[in-house]
């Protein structure tokens, strides 16, 4: 199963590379957009030395976590974003007529090219800032990898949850919810202490982007205790199960009302 998943992804990369100009453009745009968003903390910190006890490098580490999770999600699970279109065009019927888990088929479908560069930006910057913060030792690296894994699963689950709405509210193959969710996630790239309690709760438990990037950095810098990483793992497992349940409910709904 994993072999076929990876071989499908390899096929998609091959296909994308056939259009060389587009390939490089997409890569470049991914890198640019992320580098620009890294410029914001740079500007802020050149005027203010300290935000709620957070250093500049720690903010960059938050961004690195976010980029890696987003990038991996986009490369590996782009199919989730194409699902509403498939449902609308009736292509979902083909998925349901194969003896393979519909979730696997959705996840293995397609590939987000920009994701590669977003991932690369994150993957390059993370070790740099880990080193600057003195965290580039074996414990820090193992911990970071584990947190990245959890964050990617969590990110995928949020997308899946948002896009599964299409089974109930099909508005021409688009629904606003997943975009809203991913926009909300953009607020989780700063220390949560900056926000009032309600927003903090929202970013941690309703749209748990906080667990993708902020909480991992808090664990690494030691502002929360290390067992919190179990909380991160629990959160991502829980959200994955929730998203999968909603997805399955959605399919059942589709089966009973679909045209």
């Amino acid at each position: 199963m994993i072999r076929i998943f990876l071989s499908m992804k390899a096929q998609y990369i091959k296909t994308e590379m056939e259009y060389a100009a587009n390939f490089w453009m997409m890569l470049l745009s991914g890198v640019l957009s992320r580098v620009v968003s890294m410029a914001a903390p740079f500007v802020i910190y050149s005027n203010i030395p300290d935000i709620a006890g957070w250093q500049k490098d720690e903010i960059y580490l938050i961004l690195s976590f976010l980029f890696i999770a987003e990038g991996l999600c986009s490369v590996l699970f782009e199919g989730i974003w194409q699902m509403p279109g498939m449902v609308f065009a009736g292509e979902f019927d083909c998925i349901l007529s194969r003896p393979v888990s519909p979730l696997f088929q959705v996840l293995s479908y397609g590939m987000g090219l920009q994701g590669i560069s977003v991932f690369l930006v994150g993957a390059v910057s993370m070790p740099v800032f880990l080193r600057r913060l003195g965290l580039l030792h074996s414990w820090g690296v193992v911990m970071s990898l584990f947190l990245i894994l959890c964050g990617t699963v969590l990110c995928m689950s949020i997308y899946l949850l948002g896009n599964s709405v299409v089974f109930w509210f099909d508005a021409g193959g688009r629904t606003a919810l997943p975009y809203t969710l991913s926009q909300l996630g953009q607020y989780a790239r700063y220390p949560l202490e900056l926000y009032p309690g309600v927003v903090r709760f929202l970013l941690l438990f309703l749209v748990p982007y906080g667990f993708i990037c902020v909480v991992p950095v808090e664990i690494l810098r030691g502002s929360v205790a290390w067992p919190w990483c179990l909380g991160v793992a629990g959160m991502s497992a829980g959200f994955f199960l929730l998203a999968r349940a909603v997805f399955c409910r959605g399919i059942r709904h589709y089966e009973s009302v679909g045209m």
Partner: protein
Amino acid sequence: MIEARELRKVYKVNHKQPGLKGAFANLFHAEWEQKVAVDGLSFQMEQGRALACIGENGAGKSTLIKMMIGILTPTAGEIRVFGTDPRRGGRGYLRRIGVVFGQKTNLWTDIPVIESYQAVKTLYRLDEGMFRKNYDRVVELLALQPLLSVPARKLSLGQRMRADIGMVFLHSPELLFLDEPTIGLDINVKHTIRTFLRQMNEETGTGIFLTSHDLDDIDEICDDAIVLSGGRLIYDGTLDQLKHRFVQDKMIQVTGKQERDIRSLLPLARIIMEGRVVKIVYPVREYSSAEVLAAVSGCFAIEDITIEEPDIDEVVSRIFAGEGML
């Protein structure tokens, strides 16, 4: 193999008022309407047969197919395929059937056809021997060799359909559901696909359930037919009987010298003279074929004679015009 009893499917459709105002009103108060797609359908199909489902647009054909695949749940009634409910058969059931929707593709659109075939091999967990055998066969019979390295989205409609039909045979399905498999194709491709389907049906005993607008499809592929109209079953039997039941006129075409005037023997028939060829169109209710043949042999020095088979196009248009309901 397939058994449907009192099958019924009702959709809930959002009923919108026309115009922007209507669309706006719908945001706050949606009105729902019940739409009956399939209404009390009962029929059977036996192992290895090829059954055609004929009906106008919106007659409920696609809904019926989707219920048989297990994509849709019937509102009422019962459907059994291989003796079990498709909704409960799960992956074991899906492995035994094959599905082709003429307007959608089962191929992965961005990757070469051969990669899609390989994906099927892995996803269906086919063993190498069986896969090879089926693969070689479809590639040969459907002339797929030149298409294999091309991504599906770059194929023409006819090529894509051939690749799609080939793919559905890779896992040796026992029963095929084909929803309008030749829609929009040119005559050569249609012919290739029909011949192939017929051959597979005869050689491997794969059952075929086919819906089509193209009545030649039905004629060339199927033995049996059901006819749907407004979700109801209006005919269930062999294709031959269907043709004969709805045929009112038949035609005999004679070439040869006329020795006596045939009009006096068959006053109710229309006689059309086209040089040496005479066409005799006679109502089947008035004359039997034997009577007509006797009259013809009495009047002509026959060089050649053909009896025209009734045309299925005409038959179906009669059915839907509401003539001679069953």
